[in-house]
């Protein structure tokens, strides 16, 4: 009973079920599944009520039998249970019917989900790493291919086909507000079609245990208008300006000459490491370290200063930098809008 209330309460919230909620109805898949969930919820709730009622009456009747020393004892005569046998058959039949109904509902939803996978979608490739997301927007023209990390921008009302790969262990991409999850399995290629119906900012999180920092492997999802999406993509294609002076310039040369550049890449500079997230427009992202911290000056500095304190066990080493150097690198990264 209280189950029914509690969860339907969640559903009463409808779309506003938080930025990482399966109760959110911000994508077509999400809504379809949400609808199916409600069907299941109310059916099972009804079944549960029936069982509780059955139990309650059984207890009452039993108690009365006890008081009046009535009811059946020992080996009841075969005919004593006849109507119960009929009851059992009816009950079994009913159960089977309900389950059949739910199976069909499932199957219909599945069909609807499959249908959704048409028209010319945005082609995106998401590659799982311990513990961050690499995101690529494919384009026939290589120079128009966008490479980013830990953020996913989607145009509203249009399909996005996401090709899922893993670079190490099994991860699982889950944007609950938009759709169900899909595993990223090394040596295999899966895909997931999203059809966002509302603009907004959502949070995705790795949903398959992937090691030490499974808890801090989130993905920042932005659903925006086609126009905004276009603008964002254009901005991503523009290499960030090389600083002309000040701390930023110092930071730039430090970034290139020190360990940073052997793992990270920044478009339009010699830094071309592929081991770690692409930082070309890191300052334009809402979060750093795979959704661990909001992108602020202080957080950037703290993260570069001692990554292991922020996200213990992640693969970014603690690069020895002086206060000044740290400030410079941070300043440079902040220019990467």
């Amino acid at each position, binding site marked *: 009973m209280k189950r029914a209330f509690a969860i339907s309460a969640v559903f009463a919230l409808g779309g506003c079920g938080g930025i*990482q909620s399966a109760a959110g109805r911000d994508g077509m898949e999400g809504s*379809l599944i949400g609808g199916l969930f409600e069907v299941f919820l109310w059916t099972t709730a009804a079944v549960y009520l029936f069982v509780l009622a059955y139990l309650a009456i059984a207890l009452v009747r039993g108690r009365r039998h006890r008081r009046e020393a009535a009811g059946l004892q020992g080996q009841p005569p075969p005919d004593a249970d006849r109507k119960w046998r009929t009851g059992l058959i009816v009950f079994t039949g009913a159960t089977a019917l309900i389950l059949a109904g739910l199976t069909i509902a499932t199957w219909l939803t599945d069909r609807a989900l499959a249908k959704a996978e048409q028209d010319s979608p945005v082609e995106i490739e998401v590659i799982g790493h311990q513990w961050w997301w690499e995101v690529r927007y494919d384009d026939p023209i290589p120079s128009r291919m966008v490479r980013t990390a830990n953020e996913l921008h989607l145009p509203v009302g249009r399909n996005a086909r996401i090709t899922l790969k893993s670079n190490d262990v099994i991860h699982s991409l889950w944007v609950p507000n938009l759709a169900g999850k899909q595993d990223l399995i090394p040596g295999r290629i899966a895909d997931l079609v999203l059809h966002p119906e509302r603009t907004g900012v959502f949070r995705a999180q790795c949903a398959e245990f992937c090691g030490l920092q499974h*808890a801090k492997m989130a993905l920042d999802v932005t659903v925006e208008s086609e126009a905004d999406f276009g603008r964002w993509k254009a901005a991503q294609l523009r290499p960030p300006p090389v600083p002309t002076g000040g701390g930023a310039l110092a930071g730039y040369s430090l970034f290139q000459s020190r360990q940073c550049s052997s793992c990270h890449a920044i478009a339009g500079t010699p830094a071309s490491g592929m081991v770690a997230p692409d930082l070309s427009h890191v300052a334009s992202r809402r979060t750093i370290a795979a959704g661990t911290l909001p992108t602020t000056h202080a957080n950037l500095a703290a993260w570069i200063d001692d990554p292991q304190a922020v996200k213990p066990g992640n693969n970014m080493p603690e690069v020895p930098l002086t206060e000044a150097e740290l400030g410079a690198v941070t300043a440079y990264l902040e220019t990467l809008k």
Partner: protein
Amino acid sequence: MKPEYDPDGYRRDGPDFTGEPLHAKLTETWRDGPGLLGWIRSVDHKSIGRRYLVTALVFLALGGVLAALMRLQLSGAEREIIGPDRYNQIFTMHGTTMMFLFAVPVMDAMAIYLVPLMIGTRNTAFPRLNAFSYWMYLAGGLLLWIAFVLNVGPDAGWFSYVPLAGPEFSPGKRIDVWAQMVTFTEVAALAVAVSLTATILKKRAPGMTLARMPLFVWSILVVSLMVIFSMPSVATASGLLLSDRLVGTQFYNSYEFGDSLLWQHLFWFFGHPEVYIIFLPAAGFVSEIVQAFTGRRTFGYTAIVLALIATGLLAFGLWVHHMFATGLPRLGYAFYTAASMAVSIPTGIQIFCWLATIWTGRPRFMVPLLWVVGFVVTFVIGGLSGVMLASVPIDLQVHDTYFVVAHFHYVLIGGAVFPLLGAITYWFPKFTGRMMSERLGKVGFWLSFLSFHATFFPMHIMGIEGMPRRIYTYPAGMGWETLNLISSLGAVVFATSVGIFVVNMLLSLRKGERAPDNPWNASGLEWATSSPPPPYNFAHLPIVQDHTPMWNDERPVAYGLRVEDREMLISTVIEAVPDVREPSPNPTAWPLIAAAASTVLFVASMFTPWAVVIGAVPVAAALIAWFWPKDMNHEGEPVIE
């Protein structure tokens, strides 16, 4: 050379030899030796069952402590009580301990103790195999926990998915310990399964046809067969994992034509039946308790038996519903959805029958029956959320979230632990000769029932609100804090209530009121003998004429077994017609020695493959010594035909 035959050379129980003198003689023949040595050498199913039970409960406590630690860490956002490395070890240890070291062994324990009593025989078939099984189980459990204490605790989750659990991403020995612990517990479980199957099929009292077996015995028969068909799968899986990690085989390496999903198939082909291996014995408890406390034969005996068998079969057809998110062909999913839903039908049938029995009988609302009521109220929620999870699209949303955590705790605690606690209360007088306190029992029941729901119900909502499993921390502002806090508080109370149950056990053990042979006026043969039973269980083997022998007035018995040697009756499989008299082994330390040798082999093989070859020698030696025929106390009879 032909030993001389003297037809009157052997003393047998019978009309001329019964009562006290017989009791003395049989006790002398069947009792364990004195002292520690006697304890070690015991092959008595009661001793083995008892130590199995105690050990399993100890592991339950340990697993519970880990659960408490996790709830502590998750009680609020961004808590830093436990770091990621330790936390991952803790939830892995919790799952592994509860599944491999508590849930399955505790059911084995109850079966080893109760089945021979319920079917009216003096010991299990292959009792030394049971002794061996216990030592292997203990060794596996100790291996895992000692490793954990030494910071070598497995940290890849209780289902150790590769490649995370593989050689590259799990450095050190942590996963080897996990995999080897699986080997230990598989060997143990399989040994018990073999012993129980043979016991149930060949050692039933005269007249106890298959159609007259107690429902608990039926459930154990089904479960034993399920173990036999499912455990080899996980044993293979963990074997391949070990060889990948230790000698560089490529089974799970996708770059050398291996595949990580192979692991998931092998693991879940065992992992799903496992759930029913845990649940079916619990269903058996419920059937027995309901029958005893309503005073009428459980309604729908045949239906329940068929339901047990159906569950056992269907259980092997649904493992893929653990893999809906891996992107296997959609078409196949439909089948597994249907199968997963279908498996709830037999369970529904059983629940219908139990409630019908309560409805039509004269229920006495004592603690065991209360646990049954709590079981129905709780387990049905778990079953229904299971139906939701069977639906692919819904599963894709809530898979690997706290919704699933809630689901399987409703199923495993509500469906298996509640009946278990009821069963312990119910059979406690038979185990110990003393009753458990009814008052403390009621308090314990209500407290655990309520706190259980407070702890686990919120998890459904957490899951729907997007909280994934197995995260050691979560950011503030996700709307998860309140629910987690409620859950953590509930966990504290729940732990306390389980503590109350344990206290009740210990107190009652000391000064509970003395129990008569059949304190509940129950119907099963286990109540035909004294509480606790004598080493030989039955002075004369009872003869069974219907389902509820203890509710009849007359007590027909079979007699004529030798009393100076451990001799047992073998009867026919279906009709249980007396067929052969076979000797039963005397106490021996060889099972322990064999287990020790195997332990050395298994543990050493985590460090070098050669241990398998070299270690095989002492194992073989121990086994040969074990099976080398020992002389019976008296010269064996020659063949009669």
